[in-house]
């Protein structure tokens, strides 16, 4: 099946449908499209799928109480949330409905939560309740003394976003979708029938184009339409706490929403127990200029750090760990949200560009909503163009159980099958050589250290690749034949060890 994954190509290629971008939007659309008998291509400018906006967010599957009634965000959030159990089951992706709590520190904040409760009712979010202090304790544990109530949303959940997106892409690839990585769209031209997409790797032609380009979706739209879009990248910084705290935080806990100076509001800071046992703390919200710049900012990290230092006492985890555990911070990251100036998702066929479909402005709750948007959008498109059902479509993606999740018996069996399960490469996350090789040889091959990290968690633990980094570099080299000096962290020229030692010459 390796033929489907082309890292490099030139010349002209024709497709029935082309998807630009392989974040949660592009992946959802690609997978939905693969239900039909079509020749489909996904164009991704990164060296791996899921290398943009979808990679860095809070990992929350929102219940839908927050999105304003009547908006696309509200509509697709609630439908998307309901799809998650089945979707994650089909794709073998861990998903936990741990419930979301938004806590209030004042009567004023309780009022705000009251508004949200009403909004939730209109949005038809199941089970949302405004709880007083005592009820909150029963549901979510012992909050700090200043907490006077909270909003309980039982359908809120957590998923690993890149795990999900990679799974959707792999499933799409297994069902015949072709992925073109390192392929950046430079221009799109409207032709007599369909579109010509000019990339750094040649020209792609298709009658149907899905614009899932994240923070760049406005540029794609603006190539073909006179109805211009504007996407503003909105940055959020996050901290990650050690897996040692696993199990100590049950629910996803938000502060009460805060108004933003420029209008609208942000969900505010959140504490998220991830499916992998770590805890995410975030995030601030700042509009930025650079659509690809996911560097963390001092101000952002400090804002998160300060918030949780000061408010740690409000969270139930503080009963067991009284102080914000600074030493448990293992990493920080930033993500961009593709915020549309219209403050809502922009979905559907572009008025003056037939066959060009937008899925733009997909910011929070985009991770939750994208599967629902894609399902509806592709279904409509399939009716319009009368797609033929792909009888071979298999919604299931089966992956071997991870070594860290196995019991001793399963481990013994796995080792009988494959000796490489006996070689632990990443000590912190208990990732074996077998799993690294599976990632390298998967249908969308992982050939960089970060691509392997995203698929296996190797290097994500407390030592941050201190021990496994060099091991992984040599495994990639052995398995793919790429020289060590050309192995990258994340594609292009992100070489990890660019030079050999002991080369004669000047010092």
């Amino acid at each position, binding site marked *: 099946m390796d033929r489907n994954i082309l890292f490099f190509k030139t010349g002209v290629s024709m497709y029935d449908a082309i998807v630009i971008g392989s974040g949660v939007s592009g992946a959802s659309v690609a997978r939905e499209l693969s239900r039909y008998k079509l020749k489909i291509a996904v164009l991704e400018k990164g060296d791996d799928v899921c290398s943009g906006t979808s990679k860095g967010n809070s990992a929350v599957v929102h219940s839908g109480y927050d999105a304003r009634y009547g908006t696309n965000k509200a509509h697709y959030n609630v439908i998307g949330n309901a799809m998650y159990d089945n979707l994650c089951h089909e794709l073998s992706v861990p998903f936990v409905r741990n419930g979301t709590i938004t806590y209030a520190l004042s009567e004023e904040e309780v009022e705000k939560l009251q508004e949200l409760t009403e909004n939730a009712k209109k949005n038809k979010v199941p089970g949302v309740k405004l709880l007083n202090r005592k009820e909150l304790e029963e549901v979510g544990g012992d909050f700090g003394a200043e907490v006077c109530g909270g909003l309980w949303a039982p359908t809120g959940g957590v998923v690993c976003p890149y795990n999900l997106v990679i799974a959707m892409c792999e499933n799409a690839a297994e069902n015949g979708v072709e992925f073109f990585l390192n392929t950046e769209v430079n221009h799109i031209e409207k032709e007599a029938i369909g579109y010509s997409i000019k990339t750094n790797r040649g020209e792609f032609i298709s009658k149907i184009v899905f614009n899932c380009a994240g923070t760049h979706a406005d540029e794609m739209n603006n190539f073909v339409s006179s109805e211009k879009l504007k996407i503003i990248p909105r940055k959020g910084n996050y901290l990650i706490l050690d897996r040692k705290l696993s199990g100590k935080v049950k629910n996803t806990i938000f502060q009460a929403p805060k108004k933003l100076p420029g209008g609208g509001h942000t969900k505010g800071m959140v504490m998220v127990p991830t499916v992998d046992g770590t805890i995410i703390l975030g995030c601030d919200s700042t509009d930025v200029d650079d659509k690809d710049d*996911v560097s963390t900012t*001092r101000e952002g990290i400090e804002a998160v750090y300060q918030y949780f230092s000061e408010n740690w006492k409000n969270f139930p985890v503080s009963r067991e760990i009284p102080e914000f555990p600074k030493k448990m911070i293992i990493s920080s990251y930033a993500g961009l949200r593709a915020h549309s100036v219209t403050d809502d998702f922009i979905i559907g066929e572009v008025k003056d560009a037939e066959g060009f479909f937008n899925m733009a402005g997909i910011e929070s709750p985009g991770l939750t909503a994208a599967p629902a948007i894609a399902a509806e959008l592709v279904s409509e498109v399939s009716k319009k163009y009368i797609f033929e059902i792909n009888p071979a479509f298999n919604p299931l993606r089966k992956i071997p159980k991870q070594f860290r999740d196995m019991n001793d018996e399963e481990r013994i069996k796995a080792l009988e099958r494959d000796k490489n399960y*006996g070689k*632990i490469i990443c000590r912190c996350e208990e990732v074996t050589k077998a799993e690294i090789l599976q990632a390298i040889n998967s249908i969308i091959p992982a050939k960089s250290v970060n691509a392997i990290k995203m698929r296996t968690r190797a290097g994500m633990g407390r030592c941050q690749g201190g021990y496994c980094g*060099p091991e992984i570099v040599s495994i990639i080299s052995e398995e793919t034949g790429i020289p060590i000096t050309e192995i990258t962290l994340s594609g292009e020229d*992100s070489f990890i060890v660019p030079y050999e030692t002991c080369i004669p010459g000047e010092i």
Partner: protein
Amino acid sequence: MIMTDVDIAIVGGGCAGMSAALSAYGHGIRNIVIFERNSYLGGVLKQCIHNGFGIHKFREDLTGTQYAAKLIDDIVKTDICIKTDTIVLNITEEKEIVAVSSKEGITGYRAKSIILAMGCRERSRGELMIPGSRPAGVLTAGVAQRYMNIEGYLVGKKVFILGSGDIGLIMARQFVLEGAEVVAIAEVMPYSGGLARNIVQCAEDFGIPIYYNTTVTGIVGKKRVEGVFISDVDENRKPVLSTERFVDCDTLMLSVGLIPENEIAFKAGIKLSEKTGGPIVDDMLQTDIDGIFSCGNCLHVHDLVDFVSIESEVAGKNSAMYILDKIKKDKKPLVIETNDGEGVSGTVPHRIDLNKGEEEVTLMFRPNSKFRSCTATARINDRIISSKKMPVAVPGEMCELKINKNDFGPFEKNDKLTVEIIP
């Protein structure tokens, strides 16, 4: 799972593990197994090609590789069982061990005593929360050292170093000798955490500037490091952003501290010290679980491998005594806890049992700042039990103070043995 019975199981085949094994062997224990995750014994010594090892232990100036070879030579002369390429997944309070290797699969052991000798790991960028992008070319000194000395690769040609710890200094010299440029070393403290002689022969010798009271406040570069921002820090170690300036480099190497590796100790429920990051131990280096001992860098981070050897020999001997039932188990414990006083941080051991173990105890601790002509003392309330004059004491160099149990005299239940450095 079939369980194999052993007398002593040692987790880690670096200097600590080997030294402990040899010591226990010397005290008559024969059924010893060492688990080592790498394919070779020696641990981090194998990537330490520089000299300066062994002066205390062997009275010779050796490289790390030579020091390791001496221990390995001694080990192979014994019938100590070596399991390389083997990772210990779990240990339990009952001293059961589950290990895994490609060769033997999942294996179980039941030990009479366990010695923890897992060494330490390096603090990473993540813990420091340095803002900026996440390009290739940001790595710790130990990783750079491994690439250079074990694999034969150079991580960059224009290196900026954060932290003046020993590995960073050693690597600075190696970079220069390999033909790379070391732009500068930034140290957040007003003094170096490294050994004085490394500052001289690794930085000063090559004209590499050390900027004290300075830290990295930003990393720049999309795919590969293109430079870093550095800033002065105030007396609270907070960056003064008005002093922020850009430094051109292709690599940021971190040498910002070591952390005892105690994942399996943590999982086993062994009590760890907040200060040292290692297990809480008594003067026999026994953890709070009977028969489980800890030594070397996983107990507390050492500056010198010689002291790791010496300490681990104590753990090895006591593990043997434990098995041979010679540690006066039946005697009623008479325990006094140690306590960091003025000028001192991370005293080991954490408790001393006057009725057990050896009569002489070595207290190990770090000064928490720089001292000149000072006195280290151990006292119970106002009563000085032991003291020693020191011409210099710096945080980069661990101090020792010997103390004899016969000198303790009477003390109350809540009394503590306070260790301090007085100028």
